[in-house]
């Protein structure tokens, strides 16, 4: 399969006054299309920075970030917005859905930024929230809100789905349900999307196709999981 994401000698340095903090240090990485990838690592390892660079939310200090064959590392803010609008779906730990919009409106929000045909209701049905089209976020549980966030992300059928601790704020049953939905996005019938999940929960690694371990700004290991576990079999 073709490489969906390629990182070539990527470094990211944050500067605070005189102090420099090297979040990523000369990282090289290839992620193939249609894989369910888990990035593991302790706090401060650089995993979120890695996700932000892949998602076009930040530019690297040096090196190239190539997504879908496009080198986005030198993109302007405007081009990065376009890139995120068309190619990336984001899911956060605390959902980040807009409280003043209903479930349906939150998902339809993507119509504002892309010309791609969006079936918002289908995306909501896909995450099992068809009875909640007109509810507001604060009328829903955390798991339901996270499913709204996923529906919003998948509605535009992005090539790359980036998830930052998507189950971090959820109980085990709800977390498992969310992982199932995410994993389903990699299926061929769903377009073989690539899903990258950043987490510090090692148990999630068992269900991944690929596990990337990050430590102190370096890629410590990239492991192919020959037999990913079924999510229902994972003991949380």
């Amino acid at each position, binding site marked *: 399969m073709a490489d969906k994401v390629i990182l070539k000698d990527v470094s990211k340095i944050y500067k605070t006054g005189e102090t420099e903090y090297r979040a990523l240090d000369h990282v090289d990485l290839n992620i193939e299309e249609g894989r369910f990838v888990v990035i593991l690592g302790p706090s401060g390892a650089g995993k979120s920075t890695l996700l932000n660079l892949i998602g076009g*939310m930040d530019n690297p200090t040096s090196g190239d970030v190539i997504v879908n064959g496009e080198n986005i590392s030198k993109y302007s803010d405007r081009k990065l917005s*376009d890139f995120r609008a068309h190619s990336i779906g984001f899911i956060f730990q605390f959902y980040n859905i807009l409280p003043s919009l209903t479930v349906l409106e939150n998902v339809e929000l993507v119509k504002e930024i892309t010309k791609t045909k969006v079936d918002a209701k289908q995306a909501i049905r896909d995450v099992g929230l068809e009875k909640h089209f007109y509810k507001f976020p604060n009328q829903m549980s955390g798991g339901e809100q996270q499913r709204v966030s996923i529906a919003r992300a998948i509605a535009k059928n992005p090539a790359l789905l980036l998830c930052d601790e998507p189950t971090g704020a959820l109980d085990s049953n709800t977390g498992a349900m969310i992982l199932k939905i995410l994993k389903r996005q990699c299926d061929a019938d769903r377009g073989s999307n690539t899903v990258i999940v950043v987490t510090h929960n090692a148990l999630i690694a068992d269900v991944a196709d690929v596990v990337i371990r990050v430590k102190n700004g370096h890629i410590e290991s990239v492991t192919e999981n020959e037999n990913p576990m079924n999510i229902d079999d994972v003991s949380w």
Partner: protein
Amino acid sequence: MLLRKMLRDIRHNFTQFVTIFAMVAVAMAVYVGVKSYGDGLKVSVDKVYEQQNMPDLWLMGSGFSENDMKEIRAVEGVADAMRYLSLSMTGEITYADGRKETFSVPMEGNFLDIKQKTVSVNRFQLIEGRGYDPDADGLWLGRMFAEARDIHPGDRIKLTYEDAEIEKEVLGIISVPDHVYVTQDSTVLFQEAKDFGWVYMSMRYFPREAMYDKIIESDAMQGFLSARDSLWALHDMGMSWRDILVTQLGEMDPDTDLETALELADDIANETAGEEKKHDFIKALDPHFNVEKAYTYPMVYVDVEGDAPGIYKDHMDDGSFEKKTDRVKNALYEVDAVDSVTGRDSCSSYVYYKSEAEEGDTYSGMFTALFLFIASLSVVTTMNRFVKKQRMQIGAMKALGFRNSKIYRHYISYGFFVSIVGVVLGFVIGLPTLGVGFYNMEMDMFDIVGGGIYVGTDSYIVAALIVVMVTLVTYFSSRKILSEPAAQTLRLEVPKIKQKKTGEKPNGIMSHLPFAVKWNLRDVARSKARTIMGVVGIAGSALLIVMAYGMEDSMQHYLDWEFSGILRFNSRLTFDSDITNLEKSDLYRKYGTATTQTVPIEYYDGNGMLQTSAIMVNDSDGMIALCDHNQGSHDINEGIPGATYSDIMAPGALFVTEKLVANKHLDVEKKLRWHILGNDDWYETDIAAVNRDPQTQQFAMTRMAFEGLGEDYEPDTLYTQMDLSGMDDEDIDGVSAISTSASLREQTSGMLNMISGMLGLFIGVAGALGFIIIYNMGLLSMNEKMYQFSTMKVLGFKFLKIVKIYTMQNVWITLAGIVFGLPGGFLFTDYMFRYAIGEDYDFNAYIEPSAYLIALAGTLGVMVFTSIFLAMGLKKIDMVASLKANE
């Protein structure tokens, strides 16, 4: 520890706390500055009136003798009385050391009773030189003129009255209470101190020659002069002086020195006699002639027993002094020599000063209230948001075991300390800048020595109220959070949703609206307090802009009304009080016959109180027009709509201004009872018509109606369309002042500019505060929505689209604010002109559409600029950090 936390929190939220601090400080500075200046004007003048014994009443008559004075002093309630003579003169100033060139100016000469050893009423306040002494051969000069012209004791002034001259040394520089504000004559609106002076001196040094001339002008003396040749002839025929006296001049004193009188008669008749010969001539004909008894005192200062209420403390008066003064006034009318009695409300110095001191009260109160309101809005919003931001910290403190009372004290101290430092700074800044600045500006016009700004208790009360208000806002902001259990406080606040409220229906029209509209509508509905504060703040800013420009427009409109609608002459000639018929005829021949006569009157108002006013008998051929309610101009002889020709020409038919009807509760359906001052004949005549005048509230009458009463029309002013701007009164005989419509307009405009300059300052500061509010609102709203904008940005919304979404709501709020602000601006301006400027004015707001357009464009422009400026921050936003911060 908590103190350290407070200081750091203030540092971290510097902009917002500085805004509160600045608002409190500026509002306090404006209040205390304006209040201290207004109260300073009143307190300072009250002190002068009290210490210098400002007269309570003024009497006028043809001359008050010593017996008259005894009678006046005997009236119950009269504490003291002092007679004097006041004349319009010309003064020629010569500097003692020749340090400057000699110059001439118009001056007012006041001559005090020769018997009066000290000045007991209208006392002098000595600034320089020696105190008053009736025997000292010199004069006492008014301070403002002396300072403007650098005149000191030792310099000399030659006073000229008609043909008589006296030159005296300046013995002292003084201030007197009834000369706090003076003008050369009623045609001058703003007196330049250097162009007009006044002096006081003893009648002993009155130019006697002028007095002798008056005596010689009497019928008896003139009769003797015309008979002098025949008397000489009788003497030449051998008749003795005694026989001539008895047979020809039987009514004369038997001790008359006829020979001396006839020897001097030729010089007298030929006007070649000097002062000594004139004295000897009079003395020869009147052996008992005593120069001191011949002095004429047509005016008397009266001090009524007890303390007059004063301008500052008049609200504490129960009206008893006024009642007593009225009783004294009525009793004084019983004295034969008294022609008229007027009170302080007819003294131009008192009335103008009072109106100036009170003028500031209303508009400064209004502006300060507006300031405090705007400031409190900002404080409420900012403190509310700040405490909400501290929610997690409050939760943490509660979880750690801090008692609610300790947390309350901690949060209350933010508001308390910031506001207390703010009000102190407000005092420190406001008093020396606005207070002293405005006070000194007023003192260019008024002669008050030893006065200054005054800080009354109300300023401290307002300061305390501001601190209490800010502290309470902080208390109420934290109370809601503190009443929650610690566990709940540690969670994010959940916004309340009412599914069925307007704008929140998921179906219906809402579902068809564009995303940006929908999102903003819901945000507005959810942040009602912030939205209302924004609307009010912007309404305030728009209102102030409309006021700023509206005042300018209204003043221009007033000037047009006064100088195009009413005063429709080119030049005005004020007649000398002793103008001869020959001079009048000459003036009519040269300049036309459009004239008026101002007749001072007393009348009973709607409450039965005796009031002083004037009737302008108008025969000006429309050059002094009368305006109807809608400001349409009419020649008085054509009447104004609603009044027939026979109505306005009926004997005594009066025109009265609308504002006077309202102020004095006059019933226009009833007859008005009035009399001419100095004349005991009372009239009861109809009010034929009601007219409007922007600045003079009085009566008017046609010449025919006036003469129909049997009164003689004796014009005092002539109007012409000829341009006499290059001439002065010395160029035309019988004229005491020449003024042109253009110069009057310029003077009025100059005076109004001073007021508008002061108001402009308030409006400027208030406008700046308004813009701070807009910025603060924008900042708060941006902070609250930051994570939503970050989410949008992560999703791929372009920068400009987010700016559009953010700006859209601000534009709505601005437009809503403008909807209230524009009419509000008109109403405030109108209120100020109608009620605040003084009861003698009948202004109303007249605002050009351009003022509204400027307010609309200005407010909208600032809001859009602020929104874009704040939205620029979104470009560099760290999306992840922002989203994480929300977590």
